């Protein structure tokens, strides 16, 4: 009996681990990532660029989490720009602690000059930065948000 419950526990733990790993897609090239900026559905896509080393980014994550939970029609993707060699050491432990519910992907393409403009030509490269779009309508912001209402008011500007 003990054996069975132990196996069950182990299986559960493994499922949990595989679940956590399945959530984390790592894009080594921007070209592979780019489709996330062009979903052609009716949803509002909120793409937030952040990193564990960026304090203002961490501080605004709860607002994106709140937003993600609030409406079915809003899809939040948190794009980590953490360094490739810190995914295991910094990013994964952070994600385990925070238990974030939004989708999380990692983009490790450091040829920044080749792709920053493809997100927005308004982007100088500072993070946090957020790109919000629905269909062809979009808005970009290179600054942190201080509340979920602030994100919502920007979203309202593209709700046509």
């Amino acid at each position, binding site marked *: 009996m003990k054996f069975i419950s132990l196996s069950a526990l182990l299986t559960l733990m493994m499922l949990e681990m595989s679940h956590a790993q399945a959530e984390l897609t790592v894009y080594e090239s921007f070209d592979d990532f780019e489709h996330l900026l062009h979903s052609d559905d009716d949803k509002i896509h909120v793409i937030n660029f952040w990193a564990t*080393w960026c304090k203002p980014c961490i501080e605004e994550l709860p607002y994106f989490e709140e937003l993600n939970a609030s409406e079915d029609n809003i899809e939040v993707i948190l794009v980590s*720009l953490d360094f490739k060699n810190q995914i295991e050491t910094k990013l994964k432990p952070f994600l385990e602690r925070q238990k974030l519910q939004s989708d999380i992907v990692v983009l490790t393409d450091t040829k920044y000059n080749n792709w920053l403009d493809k997100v927005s030509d308004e*982007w100088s490269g500072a993070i946090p930065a957020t790109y919000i779009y629905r269909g062809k309508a979009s808005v970009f912001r290179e600054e942190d948000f201080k509340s979920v209402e602030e994100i919502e008011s920007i979203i309202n500007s593209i709700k046509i």
Partner: protein
Amino acid sequence: MRQFFILSFLVGCFLSVQLHAEINPGNGYKVGDKAADFSLKSVDGQMVSLSDYKDAKGYIVVFTCNTCPFSVKYEDRINEMHQKYADAGYPVIAINPNDPSIKTGDSYDAMKIRAEEKGFDFPYVFDEGQKVFPVYGATKTPHVYILDQDMIVKYIGAIDDNPGDAEMVDMNYVDNAIASIQKGVNPDPASTKAIGCSIKYKKS
């Protein structure tokens, strides 16, 4: 009429408060603009201006700081850049633009410690009161401005194309820009983009 005056006065007050309170780094220099000189205190206590360098053929102005991981990754490279180019007439001047009341690790005292630890050969100056970075239009650290002898901005952007690994750099933008200035041609690329830490200032 009197009401009009009162109204104008109030509008005037409002505008001046707005102008005073807002730091807007979005509208700084573009390539081709003439850069303003500054006088900022370096970690050795001396005030540093571009005009101090009488024989300069150009200037490498780097907005950087102690705390940003990207800046930290570039510290050795900035030091090497200075060793490589100062004698050729292109000194590095590194400016910390952050408000230490937001980022305590970027205080003047912390700068002194970091400069000592890393053996910075170049002046590492503090943008006290944050008057300089908005004029240049720097938004992040590191953010490089290369000026020619006449303080015309020739290049704005990243140091090279691989922040993570100096050994794996394909293109060193600073080397390219300096070589172009030495040849008397405009650098190509004249501006580049890279990820960095936002410059920390109080928002109104």
